C-alpha cells in the first residue's frame, strides 16, 4: 500500500539522466471526503440563517449571510492547511464542528431578531467574530504543534497553567462575577473571558502526562476486596488533590458544573490509565458525598437541588432565583414537539438567556425532537471520532489525551443538556460549539485542532500490508 504522506520518489525519473526527485501525487481521499462534507455543512448553515430570516422577518437580508460566508472561508482555509500539514487527519471532526457552530450562530441570530439587536450589540455578530478567532486558533495549533508528543514534555507546565487559569477569576480586580458564579475575568468593561474553558485543555494534557508517568503505582498494588482491587492509602493522594480542587471550585467560584467537569475528566482518565473500577466508584462516592454536603450547607447549591427536584411547584417557580428559567425551557421544548415550530417561528426569547445556557431549549423549540436528536447525533459522532483516535493511537500519552479531550466535550454536553432537560440539577456551562460565548468557542476549536493533529500523527500508517 503506498503511503500517502510520504513523498515517494519516482525511480524511473531518478535513475539515469536527470536525478530529479518528483513527488508522487496521490489522491487525498480523506481530505476530499472532508471537503465534500464541509461543503454540505456550510450549505446547511447558510440554509439555517436564511430560514431564520424567512421565518422571523419574512425577507432575506444579506449582511449576516456575508459574515457567515467569510466564516465559511476560514473553515475552508483550515481545510487547506490540513491538506498540506496533516493529510491523514480525521475527515469528520471539522465538518461536524462547523455545522454545530453554524447552527449555534443561526439560533443566536434568531434571538437577536426577537430582542431587536443589531450591529455590535448583536450576540450573533460577536459570536461570528469569536468563531473566526477560534478557527484561527485551531489553525495555529495545527501549524505549531507538529507532533502531539511534544506536549508530553510540558506535562507539569500544563498542570500549572491549568490550575493558574482556574484560580485567575479569584484574583481581586480581575475576576468578574456573572449571575453568582465567579468564573470570569475581564479587563475594564469589555472582553470578559472564562479561563476555566481553556483550563480544561491544559488539565487534560496534564492528567494524560501525569498518568502515563505514574500509573503503575496506581494500578498494580493494593488489596482485593469485594472482587475489586483497591489502592493503597498512600496512593490516594492524586485523587484527593483533584477532589479538593473541584470542591474549592464549588465553594469559592460557586460553580457546580465546572467542578463536575474537571473531576469527571480526571476520573475517566484515571480509569483509562489503570483499568480499575474501584477508582471510579471511590471517585463518584467522593464527589457525590461532597455535592450532598454542599447542597446542605451552600445556599446556591441547595437552590439548584430544590429547582431540580421540585421544579413544577408554583412556589419554587415564582421564587426569586427559582425554577422559572428551567420550567420555561421545558415549556419551550414541549411547544416544539416532534418537528418544532420552525426556525424563526417559535418564542425562544421567553426563556432567560436563551442564547447561551438555554440554547438547547431554544433549538428544541424551533427544530423539535427531530432537530435536537440530530444535534445530539452530531455530538455523538464527534465524541466517537475522538475515542476512535484514542483507540487507534500507538502511544499511551496520545491515547489518554485523545480520549480525555473528547470525553470532556461529551461530559460538558451531558452536564448542560442534562441540566436543561431536568435529568440532573442545572449548572451553568456552555454547550460546546453552540452556545454564545467566546471562551468556550476558542477552547472547543482548540480541542478540534488538537484532535486533528492527534489523528494525523496517531493514524498509524501500515508498515506492511499482507
Amino acid at each position: 500500500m503506498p503511503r500517502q504522506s510520504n513523498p515517494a520518489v519516482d525511480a524511473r525519473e531518478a535513475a539515469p539522466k536527470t536525478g530529479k526527485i518528483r513527488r508522487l501525487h496521490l489522491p487525498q481521499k480523506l481530505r476530499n471526503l472532508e471537503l465534500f462534507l464541509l461543503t454540505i455543512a456550510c450549505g446547511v448553515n447558510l440554509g439555517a440563517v436564511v430560514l431564520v430570516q424567512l421565518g422571523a422577518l419574512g425577507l432575506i437580508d444579506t449582511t449576516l449571510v456575508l459574515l457567515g460566508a467569510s466564516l465559511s472561508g476560514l473553515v475552508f482555509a483550515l481545510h487547506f492547511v490540513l491538506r498540506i500539514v496533516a493529510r491523514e487527519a480525521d475527515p469528520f471532526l471539522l465538518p461536524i464542528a462547523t455545522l454545530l457552530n453554524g447552527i449555534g450562530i443561526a439560533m443566536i441570530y434568531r434571538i437577536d431578531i426577537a430582542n431587536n439587536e443589531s450591529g455590535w450589540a448583536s450576540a450573533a455578530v460577536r459570536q461570528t467574530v469569536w468563531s473566526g478567532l477560534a478557527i484561527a486558533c485551531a489553525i495555529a495549533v495545527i501549524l505549531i504543534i507538529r507532533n502531539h508528543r511534544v506536549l508530553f514534555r510540558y506535562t507539569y507546565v500544563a498542570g500549572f497553567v491549568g490550575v493558574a487559569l482556574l484560580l485567575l477569576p479569584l484574583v481581586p480586580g480581575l475576576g468578574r462575577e456573572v449571575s453568582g458564579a465567579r468564573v470570569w475575568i475581564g479587563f475594564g468593561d469589555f472582553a470578559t473571558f472564562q479561563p476555566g474553558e481553556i483550563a480544561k485543555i491544559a488539565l487534560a494534557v496534564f492528567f494524560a502526562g501525569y498518568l502515563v508517568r505514574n500509573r503503575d503505582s496506581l494500578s498494580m498494588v493494593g488489596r482485593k476486596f469485594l472482587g475489586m482491587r483497591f489502592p493503597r492509602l498512600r496512593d490516594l493522594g492524586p485523587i484527593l488533590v483533584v477532589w479538593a480542587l473541584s470542591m474549592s471550585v464549588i465553594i469559592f467560584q460557586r460553580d457546580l458544573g465546572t467542578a463536575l467537569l474537571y473531576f469527571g475528566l480526571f476520573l475517566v482518565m484515571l480509569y483509562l490509565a489503570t483499568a480499575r473500577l474501584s477508582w471510579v466508584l471511590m471517585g463518584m462516592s467522593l464527589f457525590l458525598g461532597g455535592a450532598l454536603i454542599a447542597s446542605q450547607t451552600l445556599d446556591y447549591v441547595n437552590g439548584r437541588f430544590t429547582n431540580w427536584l421540585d421544579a413544577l411547584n408554583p412556589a419554587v417557580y415564582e421564587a426569586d432565583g427559582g425554577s422559572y428559567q428551567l420550567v420555561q425551557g421545558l415549556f419551550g421544548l414541549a411547544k416544539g414537539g416532534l418537528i418544532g415550530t420552525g426556525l424563526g417561528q417559535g418564542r425562544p426569547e421567553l426563556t432567560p438567556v436563551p442564547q447561551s445556557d438555554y440554547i438547547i431549549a431554544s433549538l428544541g423549540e424551533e427544530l423539535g425532537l427531530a432537530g435536537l436528536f440530530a444535534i445530539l447525533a452530531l455530538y455523538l459522532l464527534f465524541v466517537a471520532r475522538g475515542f476512535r483516535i484514542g483507540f487507534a493511537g500507538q502511544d499511551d500519552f496520545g491515547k489518554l489525551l485523545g480520549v480525555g479531550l473528547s470525553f470532556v466535550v461529551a461530559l460538558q454536553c451531558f452536564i448542560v443538556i442534562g441540566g436543561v432537560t431536568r435529568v440532573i440539577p442545572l449548572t451553568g456551562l456552555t454547550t460546546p460549539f453552540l452556545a454564545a460565548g467566546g471562551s468556550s468557542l476558542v477552547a472547543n476549536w482548540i480541542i478540534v485542532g488538537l484532535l486533528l493533529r492527534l489523528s494525523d500523527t496517531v493514524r498509524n500508517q501500515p508498515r506492511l500490508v499482507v
Partner: protein
Amino acid sequence: MNPSELTLLVLRLAFLLMLWLFIFGIVYALRSDLFGHRVRKLATDAPPAAGVPFASPPPAPVAAAAPFAQPPSASASAPTEQFSQQKAPAVPSGPEKATTRTATRLVITSGPKAGTEFPLGSEPVTIGRSSDSSLVIRDDYTSTHHARLMLWHDDWMLQDLDSTNGTFLNGKRVAVPTSVPLNTTVKIGATSFELRR
C-alpha cells in the same frame, strides 16, 4: 416578499431532512468502523513475493515498473524490503528473549508475503485487518484488531486482542501477554512471522 405558511413548512422539513442526511452521510462513510474491513480474496497460489515489492491492489507505478528500485527509504518507518537470505537465521541454543536491543526486524516467514520484513523500532506494532494497524493482514482468519506486539521494559510481548481465530506462538495459543523469544514463529491466520536480529 412574505413566504406563505406552506413554503415555510416545506423549507422547515427540508432543513431537518438535510441535517439528517448529513448525519447519515457521515455514518455511511464510517461504515468500515462499524462493520470491519472487507475481506480481500487472497490469490491461493500467488508466487512468494520475494522479488516483487508490494504487489498492492492498486499497483503503484514505481513498484510495477522497477522491481528493484525501491524508493530509497523515504522515511525511517517506510517499508523496506531486503532478502532474508542475506542473514541465515541463527538458531539459538536456548530461547533468547526478543528485546529492543536483540530484535531489529520482523520477518514474514510464511503466507503470501513470505520473505518481506520491516524494521522494529521502539513503538508497539498492532496487527489486524483494520487499516490502522501497523501490520495489516487481510485474510479470512484475521480479526479487525487481532493482536499486538508491545514493549514491557524493553521486552517484546505478544498480546492477543481477543481475536476470533487466535494468535499462536510456537504452536501454542496465546492467552495472556507472553514474551516473544527470537526466531520463534508467531502465526496469525495464514501468515507467520518471526522477530529476528
